[in-house]
């Protein structure tokens, strides 16, 4: 299948990261590898021991020093730039980390999917994995109420998040046009009082970015 808007498939890597902070509404995970967080807007999940699988949407990705007191500084010099800087300082991957925050949008338990907040948060140090295309389909087949949860998110670029999630989901479900229409209807209901905002989000969902020289 041709990627939509240049988006690549996220279901190839089985482990995305490990939960390092968790609350009812969101969890923070450290990416398994530096700079290898799942894409902004992607569905991720954390399973617990008691059969509960919490589903989240990646809402913010950040890379910085592991030690909170240590800030990254410019290391490039002469011809040493970009990847060469990492080659010249092989210790960097051990002192830097990538973290990502996911907004909790629902959970699955005993074969059923729920698009409201789970009874318990994710457990610390448990694995975060990207949702497979099949899991995305199952979750979104249950309804699109989760778009309302994303819209209510605070301290995240909500409109961008919604558009990114819709683009990715449309691609992963394999029926982009049909899903975009469904999501458009859901958004129209959620934002019926704010037409300019609605159109701004919808445009981000369907228009591939074109750069004209």
């Amino acid at each position, binding site marked *: 299948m041709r990627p939509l808007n240049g988006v690549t498939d996220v279901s190839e890597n089985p482990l995305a990261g490990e939960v390092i902070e968790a609350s009812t509404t969101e969890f923070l995970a450290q990416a398994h590898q530096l700079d290898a967080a799942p894409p902004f807007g992607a569905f991720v999940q954390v399973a617990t021991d008691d059969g509960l699988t919490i589903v989240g949407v990646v809402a913010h990705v950040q890379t910085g020093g592991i030690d909170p007191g240590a800030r990254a500084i410019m290391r490039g010099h002469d011809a040493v730039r970009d990847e060469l800087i990492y080659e*010249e300082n092989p*210790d960097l991957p051990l002192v830097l980390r990538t973290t990502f925050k996911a907004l909790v949008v629902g959970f699955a338990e005993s074969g059923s999917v729920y698009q409201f907040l789970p009874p318990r948060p994710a457990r610390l140090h448990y694995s975060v994995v990207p949702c497979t295309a099949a899991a995305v389909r199952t979750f979104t087949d249950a309804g699109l109420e989760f778009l309302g949860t994303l819209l209510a998110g605070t301290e995240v670029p909500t409109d961008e998040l919604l558009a990114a999630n819709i683009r990715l989901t449309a691609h992963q479900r394999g029926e982009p046009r049909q899903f975009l229409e469904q999501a458009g209807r859901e958004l129209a209901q959620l934002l019926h009082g704010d037409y300019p905002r609605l159109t701004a989000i919808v445009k981000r969902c369907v228009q591939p970015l074109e750069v004209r020289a």
Partner: protein
Amino acid sequence: MPLDLLEVGTQVRQMGELLASRRADELRRLSLLEEMLRAYSNRWEELAELAERVRERVAVPTGPLDERVPPPPSLTAYTALATDGAEIDPDRHGGSGDFFLINVGRVAIPYGQPGRPAELASATRLGYTEEDLFIVDPRDPRRQVPMRDRHLDALRTVEELRALADLAEQERGDAPTIALVDGTLLFSVLEERPRDFLRQRFYSEYVQQLERMRRAHVAVAAYASRSRGIDLVNLFRAVCGGMPLACDVCHGAHACALRGLSDAHLLGRGLQKWERTGLFRVRSNVHDPYFGPHRAYFFLLQTGEEVARVEVPEWVARDKHQLSNVHTVLVDQCNKGFGYPAVLARADDKAVISLADRTVLDTLVRQELARRGVLAKPSAKLHRKQVRTV
């Protein structure tokens, strides 16, 4: 606020005035000493001969004093090893029983060797048994010294070098390997003590680790940032006899022109960035009997911002190839670490025991004691500090 800032402010101003005038005085004295340095520059053999007869710890020149060695070509691949340590002393006031903790940061970074991962780790050891907490004189078991303060410092220094020797023995790469310690190879913790069982124990264990590194063919060097070393100053004091009145340099001044100056003052000024001085051997009555083939040599290295002192054992000093590697690796390391060797900075990061770490350790110990029905009661003094009353 317990600090009387108004009063301290006045004192800081007075101190600033004094430091500024001292700096001007140092420059004046250095210009006086320049002539003496020039005169002795090529008479280094005479100086070396004299150095062997002096009682104090002095630097023995191994070549002309004004020798300058430019940085050798850089290595495309090398492995840098470093360790650094921190400790928690037994807490007399905490009431959680006597124990100490030593945390050693161990770092191995392979440069220019794609596919080999770096290692950043720390090894933590708790000392709590009788054998840990007391150093016993093997010849007279009644003589026991508690492992705390300076003695714990000495133990930590040995543990740092032991971890470095472990890393050196584990290193499997083909590239040259350089092992760095922070500070000095001249175990300075118990320098003032008589030759007793304490010195015997720490010094011989320390030298054993140097021997392990020699056998592993890993060049070891100690790096002291902004060195205050005065081994060469001591030698010149011996030259002039320390009598300003009879001295050609001081011209009857009330005090010796060398006072307060360091080797870096004497030798560092003419050094271009990344140049090093010639090698000097440290002759020390305290260290030489223990160090044998590991006797310490040093050179000064201009890093641009400051003059650092680098010490190497004799087997590195005599091996031109290894010595050149130490020089070029330090240049690269200081470049990467913005003036201080990057690998040592990483080792320090892994060694530091934060306040939060201390609190966690304290809680763990208290919980364990409570579980076993032992009450960890702080001393009256600590209790008074924790609970302030008015």
